[in-house]
């Protein structure tokens, strides 16, 4: 909130005769909003409302055809049938988010403070995977993690793999999620770390903070907005993802995204699929709300 205050108060701080100018500026601002609002209305609000009504539809005699109704029980049925997928989604996405944070933080730190003239190049490299298709890259992991591959062979030699393999296990799904959403963690972390004045770190050292204390008391708190943004940008899409579970997991590792996909496209059970979508959205919104509250940075999002 404090970050908003100056922007809001500055027009009124100007001279009173400028009021008409202010009004014109406000009108321009609203005009500029129209394309975005139209887009949101047509491609977000209308589908969302339609999805909501679909989630309450009741079956008819013909398979795949549903009629308008207020069948709230769709939600209960969906939950009863698919709660393991929900749990898996959030556990996998949670682990992937933590892994991504652990990998991304040192990298983002290095790019922000130590990369020097290589900074731009390293940022390009972080984004580079986006130049290849998401599907293709995930498919590539099937080769990397294949049963005869070097990685699996290595870990098997050490007897570290309970199932004797990585591909088609939850490990592969989590690794895939971590890999695919890593840039979404690195970029906001980098943005937050890059903003930190290096002189603050010098000041903390000058004031008797060991490097580890300087990190805990100065760098980490100042990077929190990036941590919050990065974890949200990783966790939310990871929780709804189904590509990684499809390509890298076994049938028993399916996530809620897979359930929605098969209900929509294979079973053509639109009400259940819609109900699952709404439940997923509700859970994510609740988690995000609680998380941001706990992080105490509501003014930063």
């Amino acid at each position: 909130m404090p970050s908003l205050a100056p922007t809001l108060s500055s027009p009124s701080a100007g001279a009173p005769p400028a009021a008409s100018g202010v009004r014109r500026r406000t009108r321009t601002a609203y005009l500029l909003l129209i394309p975005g609002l139209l887009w949101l209305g047509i491609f977000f609000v209308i589908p969302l409302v339609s999805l909501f009504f679909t989630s309450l539809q009741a079956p008819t005699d013909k398979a795949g055809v549903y009629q308008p109704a207020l069948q709230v029980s769709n939600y209960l049925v969906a939950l009863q049938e698919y709660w393991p997928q929900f749990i898996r989604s959030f556990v996998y996405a949670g682990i992937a988010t933590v892994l991504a944070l652990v990998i991304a933080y040192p990298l983002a730190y290095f790019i922000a403070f130590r990369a020097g003239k290589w900074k731009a190049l390293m940022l390009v490299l972080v984004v580079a995977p986006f130049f290849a298709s998401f599907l293709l890259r995930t498919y590539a992991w099937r080769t990397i993690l294949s049963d005869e591959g070097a990685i699996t062979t290595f870990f098997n030699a050490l007897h570290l793999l309970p199932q004797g393999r990585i591909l088609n296990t939850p490990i592969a799904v989590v690794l895939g999620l971590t890999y695919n959403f890593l840039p979404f963690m690195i970029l906001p972390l980098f943005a937050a770390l890059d903003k930190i004045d290096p002189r603050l770190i010098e000041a903390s050292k000058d004031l008797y903070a060991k490097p580890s204390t300087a990190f805990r008391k100065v760098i980490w708190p100042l990077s929190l907005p990036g941590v919050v943004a990065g974890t949200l940008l990783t966790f939310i899409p990871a929780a709804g993802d189904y590509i990684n579970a499809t390509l890298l997991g076994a049938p028993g590792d399916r996530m809620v995204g897979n359930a929605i996909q098969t209900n929509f496209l294979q079973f053509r059970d639109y009400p259940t699929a819609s109900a699952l979508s709404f439940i997923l959205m509700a859970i994510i919104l609740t988690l995000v709300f609680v998380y941001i509250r706990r992080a105490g940075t509501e003014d930063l999002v």
Partner: protein
Amino acid sequence: MTVAQGSEVQDLNLVDLVKSFGDFVAVDDLTLTIPAGSFFALLGPSGCGKTTTLRMVAGLEEPTSGRIMLGTQDITDEKPYKRQVNTVFQSYALFPHLDIFENVAFGLRRRGVKNVDAQVNDMLELVELGPMARRKPAQLSGGQQQRVAVARALINHPGVLLLDEPLGALDLKLRRQMQIELKRIQDEVGTTFVHVTHDQEEAMTMADTVAVMNKGRIEQMGPPVDIYDLPRTAFVANFLGQSNLAQGSVSGTSGDNLVVSSSGASFTLPSERSVRQDGDLLIGVRPEKLAIDAADADTVPDRHNRLSGKVTDASFTGVSTQYLVMTTWGDEWIIFEQNRSADLHQLGDEVVIHWAPEHTFGLEIPAGG
């Protein structure tokens, strides 16, 4: 408020200190003793190595060679967070996520001090910011932030407090106020202050000892009054205040005085006020030591050095008038004259400038002009 617990105030000694960045020598074989409890100013233009020197003392920059001693203790290789030295940074570098209280308490907490409240409140009282304790740095004005930066450093009772252009970001009026404020705080706590600045007036107002730095070396060091009165290099003569300089050569002696001839005129100066006793040299005199009279005036004392010229500019500033006078050999000299009488010299007036020989100083001609 006295320096009680923590470190005693000790001399700071820099011995043969060198810092080079690649080919560039920022600090060139600096040897310096800063006496305990003094207010010491390192004065110089930007890029002269004064900030680098300060950062080496703080431990934020590693010397290429040389030693840094605090009292008898060699702190050259000590980590910055272990040194009994604290810094007031140029940009203040206050922690934006902590309130003023926590900013000031930061150093105490890091050293495991349990009850910081009394000390922090005392310190905020000293810098007159008690009511601001729970504000965030961004909610304070520049001058207030500056005082927080001082409090945050001083609360640790450092052996030496380093100030890196601490007033640079403040406007003129606030700067004057803070100069007095800092001087008062230093008197009160008795800690050694090492103040880096490029502002010669600030250095002279605040410091007991000023070291004028140029190109990584100290050109001259001493109490401001002494350096101002008797600069020993042309750089000091021009950087610390203004000087009128003229090139000449020693043509003889008369008693304890040197006689210097310059562009047909002849000047005398006490030989102990000259760096050179023979050959070519620069003679100089401060603008306020000069008197200006009409060319036909007969009031010029015989013993005075004199030269004639023509007024090319006169700026009236109330208490004084600043004249520019073109000398016969084409140099422009600056003269400050107090406005004791109402009749001022006009543009184009033929005048005579004169001054007492003991206000003259003799300098080496700097290499390369």
